[in-house]
């Protein structure tokens, strides 16, 4: 019969219309500002820097090794290493900028970082009228405490903490062994990753 297919389609639409009130798999609208989709464990948007012990400056895990700067495919990371008066490099970034107007959220910086210093944030409400100032994340806007990391990626953060503690213990063990062997040096060098 001509029109049968159309009627069948209409019936399907009607079924969906009423079904959308009752069944969850029909995905009703998320009323965004008031209601949010619960963020996923792995969700990523832009990078941030992790610091330990509530010390945003000295607690930064970043040692300014510039690996992420080099590996970043769109080249949106800029790092300047801190130097003391004599010009000797300190293992600390003086400038750490990420241009999120360029960043493509690929997570390669996180993957290549050997110090677990840079991680992915889930924050996405960053739209702004100003392109240059507000979309350039400087070090103070990037630094976030480890507790925040635990809050957004709990599973991953615990794994990282475990791994870091293990490494630290190993390094201390090594340093102690070294100290015992030479028996002269008194203070073991602090491992870089700590």
């Amino acid at each position: 019969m001509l029109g049968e297919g159309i009627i069948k389609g209409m019936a399907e639409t009607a079924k969906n219309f009423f079904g959308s009130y009752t069944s969850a798999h029909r995905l009703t609208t998320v009323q965004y500002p008031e209601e949010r989709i619960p963020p996923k464990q792995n969700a990523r948007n832009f990078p941030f820097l992790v610091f330990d012990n509530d010390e945003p400056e000295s607690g930064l895990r970043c040692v300014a090794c510039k690996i992420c700067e080099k590996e970043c495919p769109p080249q949106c990371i800029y790092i300047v290493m801190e130097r003391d008066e004599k010009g000797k490099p300190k293992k600390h970034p003086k400038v750490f900028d990420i241009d999120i107007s360029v960043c493509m959220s690929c997570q390669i910086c996180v993957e290549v970082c050997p110090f677990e210093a840079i991680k992915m944030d889930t924050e996405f409400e960053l739209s702004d009228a100003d392109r240059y100032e507000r979309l350039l994340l400087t070090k103070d806007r990037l630094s976030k405490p480890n507790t925040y990391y635990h809050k957004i990626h709990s599973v991953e953060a615990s794994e990282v903490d475990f791994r870091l503690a293990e490494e630290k213990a190993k390094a201390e063990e090594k340093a102690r062994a070294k100290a015992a062997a030479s028996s002269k040096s008194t203070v073991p060098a602090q491992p870089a990753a700590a």
Partner: protein
Amino acid sequence: MDQGLRSELSKQGIFTSTLEELYNWGRRNSVWPLQFGLACCAIEMIATSMARFDLARFGAEVFRPSPRQADLMIVAGTVTKKMAPQVVRLYNQMPEPKYVIAMGACAISGGPFKQGYNVLKGIDRYIPVDVHIPGCPPRPEALLHAFMTLQRRIDSQKLTGANRARHLDPEAPSEFPVPEFGADDLEPAYNPQVWQPPTFVRDE
């Protein structure tokens, strides 16, 4: 009329408003976007307009296929040099008041494709942009957030005075020159009326 008197009146069931508020309220809640996608972000833009995120809740009910019926241009995706003149032309065809959202890294600055020879490094070189959304691509919620940012911006616009809304200023241009294809780049490379290379220099 001060805030106190107004709230007092509204308790009595009398609502007062200024012309400015009414005007901005109307404009704010009937922004119709242009159905215009360029690249990856366009898919997220479509996803935003679909049932799960439903951009229509904010008054952006319909995506208009014609620029003549649209108020908002969402530049969703990479603007290449080959496409830039068409984007400007579309913008010129939109009636005032009109707004532009640069959605995604590519539209803001060329994004990951910035090093490419055919990629325009930011659509703000040719047309004024009201809101930038970083992200590659931004989540649908991020577009909704940007939309609310735009609504707040519209809400704060003045009807009169020196800093009145752009479309109320007869001096302010509504159309911008369309760049032309040259032998090795667009000519001109940017519109100096809209955009100047920033002179910011890092001090360390």
